[in-house]
C-alpha cells in the first residue's frame, strides 16, 4: 500500500458529525471568494447544482459538458423519484431509517458517516427543489405526494410523474443559467475533458477539447470538481445515454486518483429486453412500476411460448412474492435482477431468446382502474408501446435486467476530495454512498446532496486552508498534459485500420456482460482479463476513424471513450476477481448461501478497495480503507 487513505471523518456521535464539521471548516470571506476559480466538469444534478451554488456563493466557476446544452446531462433520464426522510406520510420514517435502509440496501459496504449525512441533507433537497419550482406530484390538499421504492417499507419517494430526473435537473439547470447570465459561471458546452492537470501534487486544471473546432487547450483553476457520472457504458448496452463515459475519471485515475470498488455495478431489473443485433441502448422502465406491477414467469417451461393471457393464475410463478414475501415486488434491484436471471436460466423466460419476464398490471388496473394507472405511469406505458408496439394496458410488459448504474467510482474522503488534493468528485462519479448496491430513488438524492450542500462548503474549506501558487499555461506540467492529449489524439487518428469503434465497443460489452455481469466467477474473470488486453491491442492497431481532429468528429470522440473503457474494463474484472465474496450487485457464484443469496465475508472484505494506477504496463496497487461500523450491526441482508 502506498496511498494514505484518510477518510477524514469528523469525530463525535454520528448525528452530530456534519454539524460539527460545518463549524470546524474554514471559511473564505465573501470578498475573497471571487478571487478563486473552480472548474466543474459535468452539468448533471451534481455538477449543475455545484456550479450554480458555488457561483451563488461568489466563486468564479467554469462549467463543462460534452452535450450542446447543460440541460441534456443524463440525470435528465431518471424516472421514478427522489428519496427524502421527510416522514410526511407519518409511516415511521426518519433520518435514522433512511440511513439504515441505505446501508443495508448497499449490503454493508458503504461508509456510515457519509450515508448519515446524505440522509440528513435529503430533507433540505426537497425544500430547495420545491422553492425552485420543481412541479412534484401533489395530493388534492395541495401537499406533496409520495410513493414507495425498492428496499424500503415506507413511502418516502417524491416524484414528478415518470420524469423526476428531468424536473430536478431543470431546476439545477435554471439556477445554473441564472448564474451564467450574472457572469458567475462561464459555460463550455460541447467541450470534453481529456486530461487532468496536476501541478505540485494538486489538481489545478483540465485539458479540454472543443468538439466543434477540435482545439485542445488547458483550462486552469484553483480546484477541480468532477461530476461526470458513471461508467455503465463499458458494457456497451446499458440504460446510460450514448455519450456517457468514464474518460474524465479514468484520466484522473491515471494521474493518481484512487479508483474505488470498480466492480460494483448495478443491474436494473426492469428494462425493455434486447430486440436484436442493431440494439444501441437499453431503455429503463422505472422501478416505481413495481408499486403496482406484479412480476411473474410461467411455472412450467412448456408454457413460455403461450400468450400470457392464456396462462391461468395457478400456472404462474410470482417469484418475487414467493421468495421475498415481506418486500415482494419491491425487493432491492440486485435481488430482483438475479431472481429474473435465475428464472430465465431455468428455461422459464419469455419473449425472444427466453430473456424476459412479465411485469403485469392486470390486477392493479382491476383494482384502481385504467385511468389511475395512466395518471401514475402514463408516459412510461407510452414509451414502452412506442418501442415494442405492444399495449401494456392489455398485455403484460416484458422486462429484463440491464446495466444501469455504477456504485464504484473515484475514492473520496468525507469532503468528497479524491486522493489528489484539490480534485473533488461528486455524484455517480464518486464511490461514496451506495456501497455494493444502490437503492432506487437514491441517485438523485446523492447527486443533489453533493452538488447543493456538500461541495460548496468543502471546496471553501480546501481553498481557505491551502496556499496555492500561480500557475500559467506556460507551466511545464501544464504543457506536458496538453502535449500528451495531442499525442494521443493524433495517434488515434493515424491508425486508419479496418474496424469501426462501435465494433470494438460492442465486443468489449459482450465480454463484460458475459464475465463481469450479473454473476461472476474466478475462471470467467480470468478469461476476461486475457480477452480485454487482446481487444485493446487490436483496437490500437486496427480501429478506423475517418476525418481529422480539427472539426466536429463524433467518431473520434467515441474512440477516445472506448479506448478508456478498454482499460477500465480490465480493472473492473481485477477488482471483481480479488473480492472473494458476494455483496449487493457483486455476485460471485462461488460465494452464495444454500438458497442462492449473496454471501458476504465481513471478516476479510469489509473494506473499500481503492485501486491506484501503477504506471504503463504495470499492475495497479490495491489499497484498503476498512469500513468501521459503530452504529449499525452487520447482518445477513434479508428481504424475506
Amino acid at each position, binding site marked *: 500500500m502506498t496511498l494514505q487513505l484518510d477518510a477524514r471523518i469528523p469525530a463525535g456521535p454520528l448525528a452530530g458529525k456534519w454539524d460539527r464539521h460545518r463549524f470546524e471548516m474554514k471559511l473564505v470571506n465573501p470578498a475573497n471568494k471571487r478571487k478563486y476559480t473552480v472548474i466543474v466538469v459535468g452539468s448533471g444534478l451534481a455538477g449543475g447544482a455545484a456550479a450554480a451554488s458555488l457561483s*451563488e456563493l461568489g466563486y468564479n466557476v467554469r462549467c463543462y459538458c460534452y452535450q450542446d446544452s447543460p440541460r441534456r446531462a443524463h440525470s435528465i433520464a431518471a424516472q421514478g423519484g427522489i428519496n427524502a426522510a421527510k416522514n410526511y406520510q407519518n409511516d415511521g420514517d426518519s433520518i435514522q431509517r433512511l440511513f439504515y435502509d441505505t446501508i443495508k440496501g448497499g449490503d454493508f459496504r458503504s461508509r456510515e458517516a457519509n450515508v448519515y449525512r446524505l440522509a440528513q441533507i435529503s430533507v433540505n433537497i426537497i425544500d430547495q427543489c420545491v*422553492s425552485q419550482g420543481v412541479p412534484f406530484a401533489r395530493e388534492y390538499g395541495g401537499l406533496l405526494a409520495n410513493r414507495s421504492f425498492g428496499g424500503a417499507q415506507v413511502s418516502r419517494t417524491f416524484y414528478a410523474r415518470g420524469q423526476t430526473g428531468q424536473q430536478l435537473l431543470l431546476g439545477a439547470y435554471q439556477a445554473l*443559467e441564472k448564474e451564467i447570465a450574472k457572469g458567475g459561471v462561464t459555460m463550455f458546452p460541447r467541450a470534453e475533458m481529456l486530461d487532468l492537470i496536476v501541478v505540485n501534487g494538486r489538481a489545478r486544471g483540465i485539458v479540454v477539447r472543443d468538439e466543434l473546432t477540435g482545439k485542445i487547450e488547458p483550462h486552469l483553476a484553483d480546484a477541480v470538481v468532477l461530476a461526470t457520472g458513471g461508467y455503465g457504458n463499458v458494457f456497451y448496452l446499458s440504460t446510460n445515454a*450514448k455519450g456517457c463515459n468514464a474518460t474524465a475519471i479514468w484520466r484522473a485515475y491515471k494521474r493518481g486518483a484512487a479508483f474505488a470498488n470498480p466492480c460494483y455495478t448495478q443491474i436494473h431489473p426492469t428494462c425493455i429486453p434486447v430486440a436484436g443485433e442493431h440494439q*444501441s441502448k437499453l431503455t429503463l422502465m422505472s422501478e416505481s412500476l413495481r408499486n403496482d406491477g406484479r412480476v411473474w414467469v410461467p411455472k412450467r417451461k412448456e408454457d413460455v411460448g403461450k400468450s400470457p393471457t392464456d396462462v391461468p393464475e395457478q400456472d404462474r410463478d410470482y417469484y418475487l412474492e414467493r421468495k421475498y414475501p415481506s418486500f415482494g415486488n419491491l425487493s432491492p434491484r440486485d435481488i430482483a435482477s438475479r431472481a429474473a436471471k435465475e428464472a430465465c436460466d431455468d428455461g422459464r423466460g419469455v419473449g425472444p431468446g427466453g430473456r424476459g419476464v412479465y411485469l403485469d398490471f392486470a390486477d392493479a388496473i382491476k383494482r384502481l382502474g385504467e385511468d389511475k394507472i395512466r395518471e401514475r405511469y402514463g408516459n412510461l406505458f407510452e414509451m414502452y408501446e412506442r418501442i415494442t408496439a405492444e399495449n401494456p394496458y392489455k398485455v403484460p410488459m416484458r422486462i429484463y435486467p440491464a446495466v444501469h448504474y455504477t456504485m464504484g467510482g473515484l475514492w473520496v474522503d468525507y469532503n468528497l476530495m479524491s486522493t489528489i488534493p484539490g480534485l473533488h468528485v461528486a455524484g455517480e462519479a464518486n464511490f461514496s454512498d451506495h456501497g455494493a448496491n444502490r437503492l432506487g430513488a437514491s441517485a438523485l438524492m446523492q447527486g443533489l446532496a453533493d452538488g447543493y450542500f456538500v461541495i460548496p462548503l468543502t471546496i471553501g474549506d480546501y481553498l481557505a486552508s491551502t496556499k496555492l501558487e500561480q500557475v500559467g499555461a506556460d507551466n511545464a506540467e501544464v504543457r506536458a498534459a496538453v502535449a500528451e492529449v495531442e499525442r494521443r489524439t493524433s495517434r488515434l487518428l493515424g491508425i486508419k485500420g479496418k474496424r469501426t469503434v462501435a465494433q470494438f465497443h460492442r465486443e468489449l460489452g459482450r465480454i463484460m456482460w458475459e464475465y463481469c455481469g450479473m454473476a461472476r466467477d474466478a475462471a470467467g474473470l480470468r478469461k476476461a482479463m486475457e480477452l480485454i488486453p487482446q481487444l485493446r491491442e487490436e483496437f490500437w492497431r486496427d480501429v478506423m476513424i475517418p476525418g481529422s481532429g480539427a472539426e466536429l468528429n463524433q467518431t473520434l470522440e467515441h474512440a477516445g471513450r472506448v479506448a478508456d473503457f478498454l482499460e477500465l474494463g480490465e480493472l473492473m474484472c481485477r477488482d471483481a476477481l480479488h473480492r472473494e465474496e458476494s455483496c449487493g450487485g457483486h455476485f460471485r457464484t462461488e460465494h452464495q448461501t444454500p438458497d442462492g443469496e449473496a454471501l458476504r465475508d465481513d471478516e476479510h472484505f469489509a473494506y473499500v478497495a481503492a485501486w491506484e494506477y501503477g504506471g504503463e504496463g504495470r499492475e495497479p496497487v490495491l489499497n484498503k480503507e476498512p469500513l468501521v461500523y459503530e452504529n449499525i450491526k452487520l447482518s445477513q441482508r434479508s428481504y424475506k
Partner: protein
Amino acid sequence: MNLTLQVWRQPGPTAEGGLKEYKATDVSPDMSFLEMLDVVNERLIEKGEMPIAFDHDCREGICGSCGMMINGVAHGPSRGTATCQLHMRSFRDGDTIVIEPWRARAFPVIKDLVVNRGALDRIIAAGGYITAPTGSAQDANSIPVPKQDADASMDAAACIGCGACVAACPNGSASLFTGAKISHLGLLPQGQPERYRRALSMVAQMDIEGFGGCTLFGECQAACPKEISIDVISRMNRDFLRAAVTKPAERSGGGGDG
C-alpha cells in the same frame, strides 16, 4: 426493409450543403430511426468516409438532443415522438426518406444534421428560473399548491428543449418553448414574484436571438414530442401584455440586488 435516404450533408457552418443519397438495406422494423442511421454510418466508416453527424444522447426521448426534419416533418411521422423514439415500423419497404437539419434563422447549421441551439439556453438565462439560492428554502409543504395547478405546471415543464417547435414553425418562432417555461413557473406560487419580469425579459431575448413572431399557425404543438399545448403561448402573451402595460419602475434601495 430496404430504403433510400436523401440526407443533408454539410461539412461545416460556412460550407455549402446538399442532399446526398444513401441506401439503407436490411433495415429491421424494430430498429429506431437513429439505429437505422447508425447502420448507415457504420458502412460509411468502414469505407473510410465521414459518417453523417447528428446530435443524440439518451435515446429515450427525454434529453432533447436529437431532432431532424424527416420528410419535411420535425421528428417525423409519429405524433408525440422524438426522433430517437421513432421506429422503422412507421415506414414501408422501398420508401425514400428525406432527412434534413432543423431549419431556422436562430439555429445555424454546424455540420450535417447538427445545429446550434444555444439561443434556447440564452432565453432561459434571460429569466426562465425562480431565484432561490441554495439553502434559502422553507419547508417544502409550507405552501400548498392545488393539484390542478401542479399538474398543469408539470404539463408545461415536460418540454425537452429540442427545438422542434421552432423548426416546424413557418416563422421560426420559439414561442412554444418560451411559453412553456413561462407557464411552468407562472402556474406555481413560488414563481409569482418574478412572473411579469420573467415574461418581459424572456420575450425580449427571443427577439434578440432572431426567432420569428408567433402568428398562431399551431404547427409547433403538432410537432412537439411532449405534446405541449399552444395554450402556453396564450399564457405567455397575457403575462407579457400585462407586464408591458403595468411595468413598475424598478427602484434600487430597500435591499436585494435583483
